[in-house]
């Protein structure tokens, strides 16, 4: 399962979210992907995401329009990996 960050060009929070997600993906050995919601709006919509930054793990959106702490993100992922 992939860790996906939904981003937008001028979103001030996105770089932050990307950095955290990347770190977590590395630590847990997950595949990592970024999706620009303006370029691929339809994929974002299928995740029910319309605000950035949002983070999904597999099909599940974990955070919507907010930046979690590294710990929060890890915790949510581990819950789903069980």
């Amino acid at each position: 399962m992939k860790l996906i960050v939904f981003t937008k060009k001028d979103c001030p929070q996105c770089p932050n979210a990307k950095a955290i997600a990347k770190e977590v993906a590395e630590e847990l050995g997950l595949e990592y992907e970024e999706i620009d919601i303006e370029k691929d709006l339809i994929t974002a919509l299928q995740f029910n995401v319309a605000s950035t930054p949002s983070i999904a793990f597999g099909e599940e959106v974990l955070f919507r329009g907010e930046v979690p702490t590294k710990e929060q993100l890890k915790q949510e992922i581990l819950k789903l990996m069980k």
Partner: protein
Amino acid sequence: MLWGGILDLSTIDFPGKLCSVIFFAGCPFRCPYCQNHRLLSGGIKVGVDEIVEAVKRNYLIDGVCLTGGEPLAQDLEELLELLRRLKDLGLAVKIDTNGYYPEKLSKVLDLVDYVAMDFKTTPERYAELTGRGDSAERVLKSLEILANSGIEYEVRTTVVPTIIDGEEIEKISEVLSEFGVRKYVLQQFRNEDVLDEKLRNVEPYPKGYLLELGRIAKRNVPKVIVRCEGEEEV
């Protein structure tokens, strides 16, 4: 496990929680007024995974209500596995039981947040009503376990005209009070598609009469609720 179906969202089956309702097939009793008699036998064989899958992505719920049939008639190991998985998902669990499986009940209680247990009639008449000779004894055992568990629970009676009357309610509530039951629910009987065809023509008691019965029960149990279209505390 024997799967009987799922209701994906309910606001009335788990006090204080939006829930999905999972129906299991199979029940040791044969209550004449059973509404789910199509679930008394048969069912589809499924694994724990499949059940978890059915509720896992449901972001609208905070809990799951396991009902039936009799959910505790399922294999204990599988039940425990299911309950653990549901807990991992952060879901609260409610079990509806008829009280026939005290040992299993005691083993699952740690993983359950709410239990609704039937107390269908007075102990003397249990065997006749349910078709099981040892039912009264086992139900009383379950009640004792519940009463001592510290878990949130309710005891409930379906008020079927021709079967249950005021005297009956009085006796039941006395038994409940001995165990220290705090929440007792009187449910309105619904005649649609019940097991015993004769009962399909029996009209349910109106709400007013149920409230009257509730007041009788209230002498012995601190909180009495009447459930017909919606709930009302007596």
